[in-house]
Each structure stands twice: as C-alpha cells, then as structure tokens.
C-alpha cells in the first residue's frame, strides 16, 4: 500500500494511492458538495460519472478545475476546495443545470427532500442568468412509478442501480447533448418495459424525476367515507425507518407511535402485516418441509432449492428474466396479499361486512407492492384484496399534513386479531429474516423439538450473497441468501447450470431487504442508514414475547376457525398463487 501526502485547503493529509480528492477531503472533515456521485459503501456500488461538475476544486498548477469525485490525488498535490474561483464555478454549474429545469419546486413531490434543491440553497442561487430552451417530455405514469423527465439532470444514478446493481437493464441514457435523457428502450413507458418496480431508481434519484405513485389523496377520501370500513396493515420495515422522516436517528423503532398515528388518522382497524408474515411462514415453511421430506425420501421430481416468494420485485424479476424457472419459488403469496385475502374474508365475516364495503390499505417500504396489489389474480370480481399501498414516505407526509406532533404521540398497540405477531415476522424486514423465521418453525415441526436458541446468527449479515447451513438434528439444510437482484441472478444462474446445492434460498430485491426498499425515507446515498434499520429490526425481534410464527395464538385460531391447516384447499385458494411467463414479449425470438 503506497501512501501519498497532499495538501487540501492548506492542511496536510496522507492517503492511499488511488484515493480521490473527494475522499481525501472527507478525511479532513471537508465535505465537498456532490450531485451525480454516489457511493453505497458496503453495497459495493460506486457511481462516479464525473458529469455534473458540482464538486470542482482547484488543483495548483492545473489550468482547469478538477472534479473532486473523479480525480485521484498525487504526491505533493495542493488543492483548494472553496476559494472564489471554485465557489463561482460551482454556482455557475448549478445555474446551468437549473436553466434546463422546470421551476416547479412549490408543487414538486420531491420538494424538501430534493438534492438539487438543497444544492441550490447551499450555493445561494438567486437567479438563473441563462435563459435557454427547456427540454420537455411526456410524463410516464406506471402503476408504481412516475417518470417526469423534465426534471432529470442526467446524473445517471438510476441507470447504475437498474443495470449494475439490479441487472434488470430497463434504463439507459439515450440521445446526446441537450436531448439526452434516461429512458427505457424505444422510449416506451415503464409499464411496457421489464421494470420490476423495485424502486431502487426512485430511491437514488436526486430530483423529482422519479417518484412513486401517490395514493394519499385517495386515502384521505376513503377515511372520510362513513360507509367504508378502512383497515390498515403495516410492513415490518416501516417501523424501523418512519422515525427518520421526523428527524429521529436512523434505527429508532417507532412501532407504538406509528400505531397511534394511524389510529388518529381515522383507520377503523390498525393491523400488522407481521401477522400475515407469520401466516406466510406457516404456508411457506410447510411447503419447504413438504418438498424436503419428499426429497429426502428419494423423490427426484421435487423442485429444490425452494425460493422465497414474498418480495414482489423479485417475483417480477423472475417472471421476466427466468420464466422457465417459475416452478421453483414457493407458491405462497406475499404477506401483503395474504393479509388482504384474510382481511376481506375471515375478518370481514367476523365484523359482518363484505369486501365491497371494506378498504384494505397497506403501508409499505416498497414501490413494487403498489404494482402487486393491482395484479388481476389478487382480485375477486374486480375487487382487489388490497385496495392500494402507500409508502413509508407517504405515511410520513400524511402524519405531517394532519398536524400531528409525531414525537409526542403515545405508544399504542395494534388491534386484534390481525395485529398480533411474533419476532419471526418482524425480521421479514431485513435480508436473511424470512429464511430465519422459516427455519425457526420448520426446525421445530421437523424435529418435534423445541429450539433452545432461536437466533441463527449464521443467516444474518449484509453481504450480497450469503451461504449458511443449519443442522436439523442430523439433516444438514443448506441455505442461500441474496439481496439485490444482481446477486439473485448469480444464484439463479447457478441453479440453471446445475451447480447449486441449496435446499432453500431467500431473495429480496432491495439492498438490505425491505429496510432498504424503494419506498423508505431517502438514504441520500448513505448506506449506514440501512444498516441501522437492520439493527432495529433484530432489536424488535429480541424484545418480543413470542418469537416463532407457529406459536402466534391468533394464527392458531385462524387455522382452527377458518383455514383448517397449512396448505389446505382453502389455504391454497386464499394464500397461494401462480406465476406467469413474461419474457420480453416484444422480442423477436426464433
């Protein structure tokens, strides 16, 4: 490792060879502003196109200013990060960007959390001296994501997420110069592309060019309708991130405050998707055990490894890219959909109403769930099991809009019966959690013994692909875990090539799992935020009285009163699904 010395703002710093000026400055506590640059550390994503030039600095002896994010340090280098020339240049760069940007801040969905807006404030832009032609594009409204490319600044972060991290390949920079923009092939709408709606492009877009479809107006109307019973379910990852929108430290659990906020918003029943996560374990876990037992009994036909199916971004991914393998994932629906299905049957009967008078809303860390609830197979006579899904960000917004002081809200509990859950359900929110929850239950059912210790540390972590094994009293169960669709693709390629010896694989589309979902408060390129949420999730699990799904008393009751047993005919009808071949429909294939 070669070390070099340089001076930044007249202070000496020593760094490894190859370090950029941006990182060297950071070491001295100097934060050089950036816009296009993105570094997601542990996720191993570094995006440095060097395109926006907001980060320029002066390097002694060089005629032109250099972009700090993309320029490597050299021995004896002398850098100025905020002299007059640099400050003026930065401001000019920003004025130029803004000259081709609509002045929509007052009515933009991203206002208040927009990096471009923050930068304009920081640089003290007060007028736009360059008046030129502005590019205009037709907005693209898909079931989950809205693209308003007038607001695109061509940082191309979305492309990196879609192509390099997710390997979905929907987005690409097209055209050149003034006309250039990021778009799907042939400038089709997202809805006509292979977009998985994972929302990772939305999660990194610094402007309002990419946002989620907003359902809050619809929700306010439904809450005000006395004829409707409005039921809400909240996903596990929401409670670990919602607080950030109110200035709380990342990783602060706000379960109780969230519940009371929802109650004050006027929901008739405040339930928990975690209940349905426990239900998922009963179904998915039984399916896994069933496949395993048949496999160990010598059945060669049985499909292993079994893949989890609770992430709709991932489901979209294999329907598009690996349709020939669609018989491997579990047929269990996602917790969101299981909840909707049970709410509009079992629970509707209990409170003597019918599905038409009930509105089921979900609060999700996710963008893909907005799409998932519109799927035809999750409707009965045109009436969806889940009417619509709002993101963590939309909920935060709604709480602010209805004049609640989040910090001073009391801690309240979910309603019963669909609000009771176990620690196993909570960990669905993080990578490794679904499979750990499944193991807790499958182990006990398979061995007939009770677990001494429910924590399976070997399944936890943040690595993109993880491998572990669990001893089921003499039978070794091999488990694979992937988060991020690029990592999932690797495991799938292995299965295809016959190189995979896993029994079960958990896959989540988003970095870190749902805690890093496309609907969460923005991490602004700081992955430590996602890690803090992961800690919170395990903390919630550890604090639960019951930590195994099959011990949830309300789940037991649900089977007794309604579903009979896991994988029963009724359970199949209400809690399982089937997948489609969506391979590039538009492609000319022989």
């Amino acid at each position: 490792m070669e070390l070099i010395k340089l001076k930044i703002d007249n202070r000496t710093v020593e760094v490894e060879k190859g370090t950029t000026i941006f990182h060297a400055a950071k070491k001295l506590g100097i934060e050089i502003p950036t816009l296009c640059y993105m570094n997601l550390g542990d996720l191993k994503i570094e995006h440095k196109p060097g395109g926006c030039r907001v980060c320029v600095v002066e390097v002694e002896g060089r005629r032109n200013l250099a972009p700090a994010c993309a320029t490597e340090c050299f021995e004896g280098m002398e850098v100025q990060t905020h002299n007059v020339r640099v400050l003026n240049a930065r401001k000019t760069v920003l004025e130029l960007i803004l000259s081709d940007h609509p002045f929509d801040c007052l009515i933009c969905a991203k206002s208040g959390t927009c990096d471009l807006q923050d930068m304009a404030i920081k640089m003290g832009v007060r007028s736009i001296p360059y008046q030129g032609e502005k590019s205009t594009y037709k907005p693209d409204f898909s079931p989950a994501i809205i693209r308003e490319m007038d607001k695109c600044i061509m940082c191309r972060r979305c492309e990196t997420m879609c192509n390099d991290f997710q390997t979905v390949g929907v987005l690409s920079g097209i055209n050149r110069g003034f006309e250039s923009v990021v778009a799907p092939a042939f400038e089709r709408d997202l809805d006509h592309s292979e977009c998985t709606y994972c929302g990772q492009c939305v999660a990194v877009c610094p402007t309002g060019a990419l946002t989620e479809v907003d359902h809050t107006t619809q929700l306010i109307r439904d809450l005000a309708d006395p004829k409707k019973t409005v039921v809400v379910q909240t996903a596990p990852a929401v409670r670990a991130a919602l607080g950030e929108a109110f200035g709380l430290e990342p990783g602060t659990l706000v379960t109780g405050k969230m519940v009371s906020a929802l109650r004050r918003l006027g929901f008739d029943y405040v339930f928990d998707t975690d209940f349905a996560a426990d239900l998922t374990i009963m179904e998915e876990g039984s399916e896994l055990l069933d496949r395993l037992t048949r496999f160990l009994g010598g059945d060669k036909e049985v499909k292993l490894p079994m893949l989890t199916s609770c992430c709709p971004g991932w489901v979209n991914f294999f329907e598009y890219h690996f349709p020939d393998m669609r018989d491997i994932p579990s047929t269990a629906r996602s917790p969101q959909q299981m909840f909707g299905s049970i709410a509009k049957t079992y629970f509707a009967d209990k409170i003597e109403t019918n599905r038409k008078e009930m509105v089921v809303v979900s609060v999700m860390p996710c963008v893909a769930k907005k799409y998932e609830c519109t799927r035809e197979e999750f409707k009965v006579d045109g009436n969806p099991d889940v009417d619509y899904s709002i993101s963590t960000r939309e909920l935060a917004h709604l709480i602010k809009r209805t004049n609640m002081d989040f910090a001073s809200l009391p801690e309240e509990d979910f309603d019963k019966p669909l609000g009771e859950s176990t620690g196993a359900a909570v960990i669905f929110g993080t990578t490794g959690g679904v499979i750990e929850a499944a193991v807790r239950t499958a182990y006990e059912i398979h061995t007939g013994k009770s677990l001494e210790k429910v924590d399976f540390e070997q399944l936890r972590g943040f690595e993109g692909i993880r491998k572990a094994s669990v001893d089921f009293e003499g039978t070794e169960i091999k488990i694979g875990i992937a988060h991020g669709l690029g990592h999932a693709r690797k495991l799938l390629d292995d299965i295809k090539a016959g190189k995979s010896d896993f029994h079960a694989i958990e896959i989540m589309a988003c970095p870190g799992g749902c805690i890093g979902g496309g609907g969460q408060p923005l991490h602004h390129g700081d992955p430590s935020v996602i890690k803090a949420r992961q800690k919170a999730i395990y903390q919630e699990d550890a604090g639960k009285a019951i930590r195994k799904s099959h011990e949830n008393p309300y789940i037991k009751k649900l089977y007794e009163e309604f579903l009979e047993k896991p994988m029963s005919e009724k359970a199949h009808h209400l809690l399982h699904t089937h997948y489609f071949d969506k391979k590039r429909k538009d492609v000319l294939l022989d």
Partner: protein
Amino acid sequence: MTSVKLKLKDSDVQQLKEVAKSFNNQPGELINVLHKAQEIFGYLPAEVQEVVANELNVSVAKVYGVVTFYSFFTMLPKGRYPISICTGTACYVRGADKVLDEFKRLLKVPVGETTEDGKFSITCLRCVGACGLAPVVMVGDKTYGRVTTDGVKEILKEYEDEV
C-alpha cells in the same frame, strides 16, 4: 405503445446472427455489430435492435441508447432514392441550407425521414470531398454539383417516372 410488428426476413436475421457470432457475441462489439446490421437492413428498426440485444446479451435499452447517441445510426428506413445533402462548410456557405429547405418543402418530409410512398428520404452529410462542386447533393450513387434551389425541382423530375 401500439405498433405493428415488423416482420424481418429470416435470411437477414440469420445473417445478422452470423455477424454477431463473428464478433464472438461480445457486448463490447455492440457498435460494430450495429454497423453491420444497418448494412444488412438499411436501417435499425426496434426489431433489429432486439435481435442484436439478444445476440450480444446486453439490454435492449442499452442498444437503443447507443443507436440514438450516434448520428450515423438511423431507425427510419431509407427511401428507394435516398437524397443526401452535403452540409459541410463549403456547401453550407454556398447555400446548402436553402437547397435542403427546398427538398423538404417539395417532398414534405423533415430530415431523416422518408416520403409516404417510400420513394425519397432526406439526410445530411458532412463534407463529401467535392467542395469544388459545392453545394453537393447525392441521390443514391449519383452526384449533383452546384445545385441551386431552382435545380431541386429538376433533380426530382429525373425520378418522376421511376417507381
């Protein structure tokens, strides 16, 4: 998007696949393969781009990105009599822009497009190396020099009886 799907000739598709193969189906050869594809088909419609994407294992979006980035790729079919107008410096100062406008006016199509009957298409070229004859116009392989706006009608007349 509603679009009628174009049926490519099987033999052309086969040829394209062989081209891709001759480049070892390497994603890095995308631009070269697209060049050849344009030679085979005359232009690069969506269907051709999809074949290229498939053969080189890159996303269609990426192929489309490259096609739209470089001006020598075109997604529109050329006319049976492709008209190219030189807009290099010499031709330009001698009124190539007016000549171009006249072609556009008479044929009622913008640059880069083809008349409805598929007969003519208009493109612009950089200096074709015949500056002495500026402004220069080419129709197919035939070159016309010192073209005036009045001359445009004359040129088109030559093709009147052709189909």
